[in-house]
């Protein structure tokens, strides 16, 4: 393992951790709403959330590049406020990753909230809990397998992201050069030994994470 691989690895883990954290904050209320609403907007919202699963990463990346670029809506606004561009920056990467991994956070949570039903929540409410209190004290712990799945899938999915990163982030060492890009670079420059090492590392990390998720879920199911 060359020292050059550690930079991209750390950057990738940092990106995945921040993305997962943000996604939990965004996806939890969104999934709760989707699980409980009878609004006609529900189907449209579900379709939008699921888009990143079916669209090629390049398409997602292209639109994000336009939107986050200095000429795009969000990008221009950001430049006006901070004087810096969102594209080809770590922050732009975080935003793109959140969009791209959103379904992997929302869908497991929504499934968990739907299987929960209203029964225990109603019981909690009649026992004096506010809606928020009932969510944190009853609904969330009862849906913990959904949270485990959402965290692991968002994290692992961000870890392995390539196309969107390349489109939005480019390949700036220490800023946007994540591990999947580094592997691409190594292969391009015919450094197969380094590509082997980095790929194997990513493979092991992904496997260990998924294994941990399934083991954890099995032990939660037994409790």
């Amino acid at each position, binding site marked *: 393992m060359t020292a050059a691989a550690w930079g991209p690895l750390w950057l990738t883990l940092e990106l995945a951790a921040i993305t997962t954290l943000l996604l939990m904050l965004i996806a939890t209320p969104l999934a709760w709403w989707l699980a409980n609403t009878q609004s006609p907007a529900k189907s449209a919202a579900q379709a939008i959330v699921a888009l990143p699963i079916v669209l090629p990463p390049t398409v997602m990346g292209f639109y994000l590049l336009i939107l986050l670029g200095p000429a795009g809506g969000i990008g221009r606004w950001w430049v006006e406020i901070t004087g810096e561009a969102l594209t080809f920056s770590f922050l732009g990467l975080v935003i793109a990753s959140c969009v791209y991994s959103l379904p992997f956070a929302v869908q497991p949570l929504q499934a968990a909230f739907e299987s929960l039903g209203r029964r*225990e929540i109603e*019981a909690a409410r009649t026992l004096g809990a506010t809606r928020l209190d009932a969510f944190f004290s*009853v609904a969330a712990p*009862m849906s913990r397998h959904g949270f485990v799945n959402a965290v692991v899938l968002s994290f692992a999915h961000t870890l392995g992201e390539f196309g969107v990163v390349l489109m939005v982030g480019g390949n700036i060492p220490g800023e946007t050069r994540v591990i999947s890009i580094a592997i691409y670079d190594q292969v391009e420059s015919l450094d197969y030994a380094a590509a082997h090492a980095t790929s194997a590392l990513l493979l092991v990390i992904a496997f260990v994470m998924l294994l941990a998720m399934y083991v954890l879920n099995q032990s939660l199911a037994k*409790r």
Partner: protein
Amino acid sequence: MSVPRDSLSLAYTLVRGEFRLELEADLPMRGITGIFGESGAGKTSLLRCVAGLERPETGRLAVAGEVWEDSASGTCLPVHRRRVGYVFQEPRLFPHIDVRRNLDYGRRRADGERVDFDHAVGLLGIGGLLDRMPDALSGGEAQRVAIARALLRAPRLLLMDEPLASLDERRRQALLPYFDRLHAELDIPVLYVSHSLDEVCRLCDTLVVLGGGAIRASGPIETVLGDIDNPALDAGVSILHGSVTDYDRHYDLSTVALTAGHLRVSGSYGIDTRLRLLIRSSDISVCREHPSQTSILNILPVRIDAIAEGSASTVQLRLAAGPDHLVAIVTRRSCTDLKLGVGDRVYAQIKSVAVRGAAFPPP
């Protein structure tokens, strides 16, 4: 809006598709009020409205002088600020925490009001279950925990939605004595939804009969059961109250003094115990003369107070025994042969008396 302090005053209109609930009632803030009716009559909807779990089209609810809901003025307390203890059909315990923490859930949120933990636990006999997880409890145990959890919330009002319905007959019989104890020892008014006349007759002091989303009859349970002109409830049973004055060990018979006369019932209950006696209408026959040679021990002098049509072959008689009422079913033929009429003084022979709820406090 006038808000009497000793009553539970409610009025609701709730529309859900084809179903329409529309009712108004003033219920006592003491004892157990049975909400009785077929499934689909609106019993559960009514309870859910009181708890704030349904949003009715119009609603008014005042509990002991406190207005909880008044759609006219836009008042509507959210669920968590209504001090109710809700016991659902299923226990609905929180599966991720043990029994003790389930019990503490409502207690910690009771705004400083405390119900004695050990008393509630003792009342429902769940002291040995505190460290168990809910999935390690039987159906009856889980329901007892759910009742204790509701009590520990320090409610103004207990709402019970067929708490025995999810249990088999054996467990139901095992749980009923706990309800007798709640009735005897607690000072919290209870709305008790049930479609079982047996449960209602055993437990309730007041009865509301629901049908098709409206109130068909309501009042003290003895009065409602004795209202033979109202077709909403053909209960076929009467309730009498009395206290035990004597026990004959040789024949295992207790003598129960009523306001007018006395009855003998099987079993020993302890002198001065207040008993609730259930008498089936079909177990009562009527004689013009005091019968001399009969196997029937219980003969009460009564006055025919009302006569109502029963089936093609029977009529119902309401018999007044002092302030108490008994409903008897006799054949139309006997009624004609004996020339029975309202106001006649006759003798009621009572074949068997069922005793329910042996430990009631004096009313």
